[in-house]
């Protein structure tokens, strides 16, 4: 099967989605009196601009990639030598090319129309150098936390975002099926991972994994990230946790393959899903793991990448784990229990939560 999904990212439905996201960001800026947003984090930047850049699995230092000025509504992009992957509503004059020169790196920022008139700028990172430059550009400018602003805007998903995420989940499920099909005695963990990655690009034209994933023969301890040369033996169960990026959105799948058995969903996961209601605290969801050590967080927010909350497992932290859930959030759940890793994606709403990942009840 070969689906043509890449081009759809630039079609009319996506133009509406981008306009809707931008309107929400502008409304939040107006409410908070923020005149401009300066974003360096990829999820935040893509939420505002909707561009596709050449993906790198590298978390570098803060650098302004996307600037949005409220007075003009103009979106300015750095490191964009081409208009390939750039939405049509962003004009060429708002693009600044790739540069290796720190002075040039901020030149596009300085040129952004209206930036020098700003009194309050929100940024999702900062360095002393860029703070100094902004102060020269707009003397007395007040800098505020743009990550907090974006976190709040991104938290609740629009129906269109949910539709995109459903497409992503369909792709991830297809990749999962290809990987499961590869599991057999004599096959290595790496070969199963390879099957997932091959299907992602060859069958679905998606080339970006959200992370390296877990592809492991199941054991007594929670599985480690990645894959090894270990070979599947007769009777082994196999654990897969992986995700793809479709149109900027992350779609995750989790499954334990038990030989000769239907992939029934553990009762613990069913209960965890049912608990995902407005007002519930992420820390309460994390508590479903009990004393069982976990291979990763039990609950993460999902959207354009991972979003807070991230709770449970070794990542259990205060701060965001105690902010109540609200309707419209999408969560990725993952639970290790009794040698089985299970999980799914869930949309929180008033009343029953909606499972975005189809439940598995039959072989």
């Amino acid at each position, binding site marked *: 099967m070969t689906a043509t999904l890449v081009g759809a990212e630039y079609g009319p439905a996506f133009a509406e989605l981008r306009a809707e996201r931008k309107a929400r960001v502008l409304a939040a800026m107006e409410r908070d009196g923020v005149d401009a947003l300066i974003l360096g984090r990829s999820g935040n930047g893509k939420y505002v601009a909707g561009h596709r850049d050449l993906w790198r*699995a590298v978390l570098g230092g803060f650098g302004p990639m996307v600037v949005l000025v409220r007075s003009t509504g103009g979106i300015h992009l750095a490191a964009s030598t081409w208009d390939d992957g750039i939405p049509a509503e962003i004009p060429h004059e708002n693009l600044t090319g790739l540069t290796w020169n720190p002075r040039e790196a901020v030149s596009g920022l300085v040129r952004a129309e209206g930036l020098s008139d700003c009194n309050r700028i929100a940024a999702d990172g*900062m360095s002393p150098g860029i703070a100094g430059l902004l102060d020269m550009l707009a003397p007395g400018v007040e800098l505020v936390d743009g990550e907090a602003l974006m976190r709040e805007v991104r938290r609740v998903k629009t129906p269109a975002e949910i539709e995109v995420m459903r497409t992503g989940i369909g792709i991830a499920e297809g990749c999962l099926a290809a990987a499961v099909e590869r599991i057999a005695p004599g096959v290595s963990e790496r070969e199963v991972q390879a099957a997932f990655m091959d299907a992602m690009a060859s069958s679905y034209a998606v080339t970006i994994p959200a*992370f390296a994933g877990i592809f492991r023969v199941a054991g007594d301890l929670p599985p480690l990230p990645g894959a090894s040369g270990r070979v599947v033996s007769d009777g082994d169960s196999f654990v897969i946790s992986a995700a793809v990026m479709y149109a900027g959105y992350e779609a995750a799948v989790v499954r334990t393959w038990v030989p000769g058995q239907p992939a029934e969903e553990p009762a613990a996961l069913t209960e965890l899903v049912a608990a995902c209601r407005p007002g519930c605290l992420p820390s309460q969801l994390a508590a479903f793991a009990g004393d069982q050590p976990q291979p990763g967080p039990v609950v993460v927010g999902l959207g354009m990448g*991972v979003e807070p909350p991230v709770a449970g497992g070794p990542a259990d932290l205060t701060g965001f784990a105690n902010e109540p859930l609200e309707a419209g959030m999408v969560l990725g759940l993952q639970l290790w229990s009794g040698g089985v890793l299970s999980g799914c994606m869930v949309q929180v709403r008033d009343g029953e939560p909606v499972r975005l990942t189809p439940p598995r009840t039959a072989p």
Partner: protein
Amino acid sequence: MSLAIEYAEKADARLANGRLDLVRMRRDRHAKLLAQLADRHLDAILLITSGNVLYASGMRLPAVDGGRAVHQRTAVLVVAGERYPHIFTSWPELAPGELPPDHVHPPLWPDNEAGVADLVRRVGDLVPADAVVGVDDSTFAMHVGLPRLAPGWQLKSATPLLVAARLHKTEDEVECMWRAWLINEAANAAAEELVRPGVRLTELVGTYYRRLYELGATCNFLDPVFQVMPSRIADGPWSTNGDVPFALITTDQVVGAGDVIWTDTVMGYEGYSSDVGRTWFVDRPTATQRSLYEQWSDITQAVLDAMKPGVSGAELCALATELNGGRKPWLDHYFLGHTLGLEGGEQQRFGSDLGPEADEKLILEPGMAVVIEPITWADGECGYRCEELVIITDDGAERVSSYPDTPFL
């Protein structure tokens, strides 16, 4: 034997050579960091960007999308004079085995005031209240919160220190880079075998990925680029600089007769990158394309021959430009060459928009890993571009890349 099989066997043999000692590699890197801390009079460095974290922690951290990575950070604290780093991570099981248990801590989450206060408290237990602390990046909450919550700390940039430590590769780092390069060449060879009219570019990516992981790659760092090149610059997408539009995002475009494909692929072995870029012809190259290859080959060979300790980036740029009839034979938005290490290109580049002064200051030294990427181009006939890696030795350079220039051999 097919090229894909030949290169897979080379990669397998390299991985089985028994020459890589990861404990020694981590110890050597830590010693370099301690020496840098002493030279620069820093009490500690706190690192949160992924390449520096890989280097200082010695963990085999999963390569992840940036939108996920910011919320699942691993951070490292290196304290002057201490034998091991402190790691703050949600993957404690990935910590190197030699690390004492009290050096592995729950993760930091410095994304709001409470998280920064928690950072100050926990790092404060490990460094003096008046410490000089190098940081390699700040979240917004750190930028605002650290001066207020840790008023005794004198904050400096840790970046120059890390750039210096990472520049010269140890024997084990070089071994990782060899392995990464061979796996990458083998995966490229498997993809090249699929090239024919009717194949989709994303199918090349699929086969490339499959072979990477089958052969033992530990991660991938770049959305693999398999691009059908426009034959004329004007046919490509609009650009800010009017140069050849490369490297673009791979699409599901169907390859046609006469197409020329350029590749750019960056993957890792124990975090160390390869950066394989090739030019493939769907049909027999034209006479002009052959001469573009020959011109590229002359330039590449001359630059490779000139690479040895003491030679500057400016000299290499001048040599390449002279052999190309006075025009620079590299892409305007990139460079003639760059250093390579963890996660891909490192900080040193020659021929970039940093300008000639930077090229003059860049002097090759033993232990540097340097990739060159010349191109030749004739508008209407496309062009030729490949990337070649050398490790600078005491008296010359050891070439790592060996992908054949099919179909010109």
